[in-house]
């Protein structure tokens, strides 16, 4: 009885762990054999050592700073992104008016806009959150907009005969139907939030994992830089998994559609 979930985990994640181990060993070997110089790609063990050595700085100072930016940026992305998506769904005009600007906001290299950010936000947290938002809100918009467009014509008509208004249609039919697509957007978004925070910290600041990684790069300390990059990846992974879990819980409770 106790073994069953363990076995299941092993079956599910066994391959992943094996692959990970295999890759780590390859990586370590390649570096040890000097096929790749360690200052370009440090060995996993060196990265680990750097992580352990700098743990207080990394976990005590830079990780919380980055996490804060990520969380705030994500909340902003989700709220504004879904509002935008819903608004664009409800009004064709709004859609046509906003979509171009949203796309433009995504194709402009943030580095090109960095002076403007500094002009407006200085080196405050707000500036970094704004960068996170800009990197991460687009998938939420597309996810909610495309999700809300999903048919459900029959359900809609049914509700209309019950006297439903737009709000009812949205909350009772369209949002439930849009949820899977919305969650796809959220999952993309949370991952982009992490990279957004990194970019935000590059634009100016004095803490955060992005700042630390860049600083270490400037100092030619590759081990430390990769330790920060590793933490960033781990952060992204954990946040993503939290979302996946949330999604599962939400959809487990729901009966699944038969067709």
């Amino acid at each position, binding site marked *: 009885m106790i073994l069953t979930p363990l076995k299941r985990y092993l079956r599910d994640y066994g391959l992943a762990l094996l692959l990970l181990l295999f890759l780590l060993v390859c990586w370590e070997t390649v570096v040890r054999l000097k096929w790749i110089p360690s200052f370009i790609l440090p060995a996993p063990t060196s990265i680990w050592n750097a992580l352990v050595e700098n743990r207080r700085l990394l976990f005590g100072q830079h990780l919380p700073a980055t996490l804060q930016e990520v969380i705030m940026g994500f909340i902003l992305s989700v709220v504004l992104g879904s509002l935008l998506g819903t608004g664009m769904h409800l009004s064709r005009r709004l859609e046509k008016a906003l979509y171009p600007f949203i796309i433009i906001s995504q194709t402009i290299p943030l580095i090109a806009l960095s002076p403007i950010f500094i002009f407006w936000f200085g080196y405050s947290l707000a500036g970094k959150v704004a960068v996170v938002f800009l990197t991460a809100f687009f998938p939420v918009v597309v996810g909610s907009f495309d999700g809300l467009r999903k048919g459900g014509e029959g359900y809609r008509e049914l509700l209309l005969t019950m*006297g439903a208004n737009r709000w009812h249609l949205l909350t009772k039919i369209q949002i439930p139907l849009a949820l899977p697509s919305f969650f796809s957007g959220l999952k993309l978004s949370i991952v982009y939030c992490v990279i957004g925070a990194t970019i935000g910290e590059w634009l100016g600041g004095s803490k955060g994992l992005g700042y630390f990684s860049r600083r270490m790069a400037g100092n030619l300390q590759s081990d430390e830089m990769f330790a920060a990059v590793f933490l960033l990846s781990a952060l992204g992974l954990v946040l993503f998994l939290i979302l996946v879990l949330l999604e599962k819980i939400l959809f487990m409770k*729901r009966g699944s559609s038969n067709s």
Partner: protein
Amino acid sequence: MISINDLSYSFDPQRKYSVLSELSMKVKHGEFVSVIGPSGCGKSTLFKIIAGLSEPTNGDIIWQEASSTATTRLGNIAYMPQQDLLLPWRTVLDNCLLPWEVTQNRSKAETISMIREMLERFGLAEVEQAYPNELSGGMRQRIAFLRTLVTGAELMLLDEPFGALDAITKREMHKWLTGLWDGLAKTVLFITHDLEEAILLSDRIYLMSGSQSKAPMQEFIVDLPRPRHSAMNYDPRFLKLREDLERRLYDTHTS
């Protein structure tokens, strides 16, 4: 209650081919009227128009003593669609609560106890917390019917409400429906393919022809006394009516 004059409807914007053309009918307050007709003749389309989901291409619908548009009717007439359209992400109870959520015309507790009572009556008490995909076809249909009742509208359009029920369950539902209809001031418009059902329940039956050349709607009056009950099936008057109706139907179909 409602009267339809020279109604035409066409799905295609060029209006070349009409599904319904110059169709007239009338349902009085408190009446029980059935519509029968060949598959694809436009019965469901007619119901959608009456419910206010589509605007007719031509013609006039008098409702509440005035000429009406789709928007005025929409939301004021209970409509049970041919497909059950239960929301797959809601339990049976929550599906039944949907009309209440939209109208909020009663207290929630009252509505729930009313729904529970009906579920019990329909033999569905046990599945209150089940999701639609865990139900049989007939169960789904009964729940869709129940949901329509919850709207509380006076005029009800029922599109083949009992098509997926076995004879005995159907009889239960008939009993229940006639009881409801006798007790409350409901008006029912009813699509069915079951001629016995139509005769048993209706005051009048409309036969839709489905072809453009013939009279689109024929009236058939069921002059059986009320209260009626299902044992009447083998009553000679009933059999006579059924044979009549079948002939009429057959005539409109072939000649």
